[in-house]
């Protein structure tokens, strides 16, 4: 029997592009506050309402939280921080032991001019997007430790379709393809355990830069980009 997975933010920028990959393997329940862009049936759940999150999570084996608000001074806190708390609180209350969370690359701006960046502490600054996601991450960490909730957070920036033709230009840094993100989500949903119950992973699809390393995701999840994307960004010589 497939695992039951609640997808919060299912009509947002990320989830609609990976659910097709996950559908064959999981019993997905899609919820959001707006209609699904592809017209799929979707439940209405506002992550800022604890009662709604808890009721949607009842009976689930895992929760994927892809809700986000970036610039709003009030909603960024309500969605990214309070919402994260609601998700973890519901998981603790209902005995759900698997959470997939996401953090933006904005937890890494302090390393923007570094290389070999593997698993450093977040440096976020006081901007709404970064700090509210960071506080949500901290809540995840606290709950993961206290209730043994295996919580996996992916850090990435851009998202792209899989290239099909040669591209005359560099691959954008810290960008993951839909296919690779879906693959990483599968690995995260299936992994038996991670150290300390909470782990954050760099995630992207292009190994050429040697900037943000994927070593930890490879080591703990067995992740590697599904295709050799560098082949599409070759300069003709």
């Amino acid at each position: 029997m497939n695992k039951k997975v609640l997808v919060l933010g299912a009509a947002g920028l990320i989830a609609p592009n990976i659910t097709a990959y996950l559908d064959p393997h999981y019993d997905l329940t899609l919820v959001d506050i707006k209609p699904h862009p592809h017209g799929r049936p979707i439940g209405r759940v506002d992550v800022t309402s604890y009662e709604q999150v808890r009721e949607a999570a009842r009976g689930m084996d895992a929760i994927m939280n892809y809700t986000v608000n970036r610039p709003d001074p009030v909603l960024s806190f309500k969605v990214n921080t309070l919402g994260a708390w609601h998700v973890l609180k519901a998981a603790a209350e209902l005995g759900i032991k698997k959470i997939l969370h996401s953090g933006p690359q904005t937890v890494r701006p302090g390393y923007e001019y570094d290389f070999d960046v593997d698993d450093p502490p977040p440096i976020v600054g006081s901007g709404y997007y970064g700090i509210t996601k960071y506080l949500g991450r901290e809540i995840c960490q606290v709950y993961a430790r206290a209730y043994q909730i295996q919580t996996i957070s992916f850090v990435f920036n851009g998202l792209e379709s899989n290239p099909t033709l040669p591209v005359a230009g560099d691959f954008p840094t810290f960008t993951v393809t839909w296919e690779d993100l879906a693959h990483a989500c599968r690995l995260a949903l299936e992994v038996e355990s991670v150290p300390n119950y909470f782990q954050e992973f760099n995630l992207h699809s292009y190994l050429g830069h040697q900037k943000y390393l994927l070593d930890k995701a490879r080591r703990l999840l067995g992740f590697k980009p599904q295709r050799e994307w560098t082949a599409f960004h070759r300069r003709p010589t």
Partner: protein
Amino acid sequence: MRVLITGAASRLGQAIASRLRERHQLRLLDSTPVEPGPNATFVQASLTDPQALWQALRNIDAVVHTGQPPAELPADELARDQLLLDLATRGTHVLFLAAVEAGVKRLVYTGTLEVLADYPDDVYLSEMWKPLPPPTMPVLSRYLGELTCREFARDYLVSITALRLGRLVLEEEVAGQPGDLMWLDLRDAAQAVECALQRDASQRVWWTQRWGLYHVAAPIANPKFLYSQATHLGYKPEHRFASHWGGEAP
């Protein structure tokens, strides 16, 4: 200095105001009315009201953000926790953003040593130990407030001093009770805040120097919570809880 104190209706806010009012002009801020007393004015406002805070911060030199919960909390636990989380995160952000926009250079936050309560009693806990806050909101929210403050020290040329205070009591009121390694007398907490207000690292280039984190504990014999860093601020606690712990302070 002209000092704004948040959470002014709280016991800690009152203790700080009592300590500071002789040498500083105070502006007390709370969502609950407070009698300002000598050398002070009062502003009734919520921490999540940017406009009110911007007004309250005009002509202020320093902010003491006590992070204390409001006097009246919802009876419902979920509503209470949501409010505490909102005040600690968004409220702290609104306050500090308004403060830096108003040109305030010194900010003091009073967090809590409770974020280290999970460690066993047979260790010496300095600021070098990783916080392990529990998922209970009264403590978790204080930790998140501390993290919010820290990010402002990264971004702005302001001096931010976070004091992790012990469990606040008056020494005389706990006489006869079993000793608590985390006890801190309110008057010593207020003294630590006054010391922290003297710290100005706002022009330091490295953010790690603009940010300061200090444990504030009682000078008991054989302490679990070490406060030696705070002595560099000038902190000299007086309340030793000698009837509980005996001996001389280290």
